[in-house]
């Protein structure tokens, strides 16, 4: 199921602006990896380059090699939609499809990719909602609109939608930043559970969260505004938060940065 993600010399641009420079990083299967760093340091850009969402914006492009179990997703003959089916993504703000019911939201990925049989869809929806710890809360109102749920429920709905297509890797871009502490806890619990089956990479501004949920942590930073973001340190979460190897990392996690 879960796959290894390996970045070699990944450099991303927005037009002529270089957002991240030469990122080398390897993520083990069935682990949670946290990307931390100050705003604008390129961690979200790096995350979005892992499932080729970066290039959705006009003028954006990526150089370098990014392999999923030794398959380079930036090869010319790679189908972008296949990459994204293999590497799911949860966004900062919950974005359920407003015209769809809860059920249709969860199976949107399957339905829009051609799965029609009702029994298959129903099984997949129940499985994904149970995995996302949402089944008990919504099982009686699957026909109601997804936008009617609370913020935390919507985010778990989006996680269910992501894992319903059975990806190998799940990317999360600050998934809890718009949520209250209780919903955040629910999603962190969920990450522990999902770790058994998926490789999870999460961008977070919350260092306690990074320390709580991740096995390994990557610290990104920039020299000055306008400079590209660089990977400063990448190690086990325990090491980063107790005995960081770089002065910059230490300054950041102790709050002496910027």
């Amino acid at each position: 199921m879960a796959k290894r993600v390996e970045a070699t010399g990944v450099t991303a641009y927005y037009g002529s602006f270089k957002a991240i420079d030469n990122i080398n990083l390897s993520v083990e299967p069935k682990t949670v990896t946290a990307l931390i760093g100050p705003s604008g340091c390129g961690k979200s850009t790096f995350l979005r380059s892992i499932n080729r969402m970066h290039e959705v914006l006009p003028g954006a492009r990526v150089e370098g090699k990014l392999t999923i179990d030794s398959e380079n997703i930036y090869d010319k003959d790679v189908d972008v939609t296949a990459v994204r089916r293999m590497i799911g993504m949860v966004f900062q703000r919950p974005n359920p499809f407003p015209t769809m019911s809860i059920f249709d939201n969860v199976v949107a990925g399957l339905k829009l990719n051609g799965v029609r049989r009702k029994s298959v869809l129903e099984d997949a929806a129940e499985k994904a909602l149970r995995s996302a710890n949402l089944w008990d809360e919504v099982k009686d109102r699957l026909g109601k609109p997804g936008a009617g749920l609370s913020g935390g429920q919507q985010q778990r709905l989006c996680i269910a939608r992501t894992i319903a297509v059975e990806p190998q890797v799940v990317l999360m871009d600050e998934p809890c930043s718009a949520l209250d502490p209780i919903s955040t806890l629910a999603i962190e619990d969920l990450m522990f559970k999902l770790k058994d089956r998926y490789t999870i990479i999460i961008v977070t501004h919350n260092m306690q969260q990074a320390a709580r949920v991740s096995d390994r942590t990557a610290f990104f930073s920039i020299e000055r505004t306008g400079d590209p973001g660089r990977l400063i340190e990448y190690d086990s979460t325990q090491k980063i938060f107790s005995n960081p190897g770089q002065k910059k990392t230490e300054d950041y996690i102790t709050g002496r940065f910027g």
Partner: protein
Amino acid sequence: MSTTTLPAPGQSPTLHTKRLPAVAFLGIAVVALGVSAAICYGAGIGGWVLTLVLGLILYMVGVYFAVRAVEGARSARNRTWSALIHSAFVLAVLPLASVTWTLISKGMERFDGDFFNASMNNIGARDPNGGAYHAIIGTLEQVGIAAAITIPLGVLGAIYIVEYGRGRFTFLIRFFVDVMTGIPSIVAGLFVLAFWVLIVSPWFNDGAPAFSGFAAALALSVLMLPTIVRSTEEMLRLVPAPLREGSYALGVPKWKTILKIVIPTALPGIVTGIMLSIARAAGETAPVLLVAGGSAAINFNPFTGQQGSLSLFVFQQAGDASRFAPARAWTGALTLVALVLILTIAAKLLARRNRIPR
């Protein structure tokens, strides 16, 4: 200076203020109208309309000073502006109500079975009957054909501009769509007359130019297309980018994202834009007069022979010498408005059918 002053530091402000009772406003209104009527009728400078307008102004002045004396300056400004906004709303609705009332009261006279079953064929100046059957058919066919041409073209064009278009070419398309929005309907009619009726239609008609309902539909298309493109474009832009990204992140291809996520989200707005353009096209007279020729007889075929339309029918009857014609014109106008209203309601219901109940 104003009568409400901030309390000195350390002094607790009072949250209660004196209020003018509601009956006072009624009193001010009565006095204002009375004074206004006395001025207008006394000096003989105007009737009830001027009385009303002058009364309104006097009312607002009276409210301002009365409230200022009792409640303070901030409250006085608030009340005066409220009165102004409410009267602006009434002023905007009055013409609508007047039009509706005039249409219904004058249009009901001939709103009978004969009107919807007969044409104007062989109806002389002394015949009280005659109807708009031929015109209703003409309007439905012409607007229907125009809609069939412009809705797919306009919506697809807007999708291209928003989702695919980049650079100078798209800029040019948008620019020309904007220019097209301002085309007077008579120019659209002349264009179709010169291009379709005089140049193209002779090929199908043994060399002779031919008026037809289809030519009218083409002219209406020229008018409808820019409205549909622009309104659809604005609606598509309102669909939040995270929705598209959420769909891409599930491995859904772009065309399917547009079809299944973007369009359904923007659908109510798109339908509104389409209905506005259809309403405008249904009310156009000049292009139909120019290229369909107008006809008093029933003609079901939009491709051969002249055709009328409801707006043209109203135009012709309003200018007709027969003393029965004005009644027919009013009923024609009422029918046209009712037709557009029914179409709009039907389209709104259809667009809402997709929504899931809460």
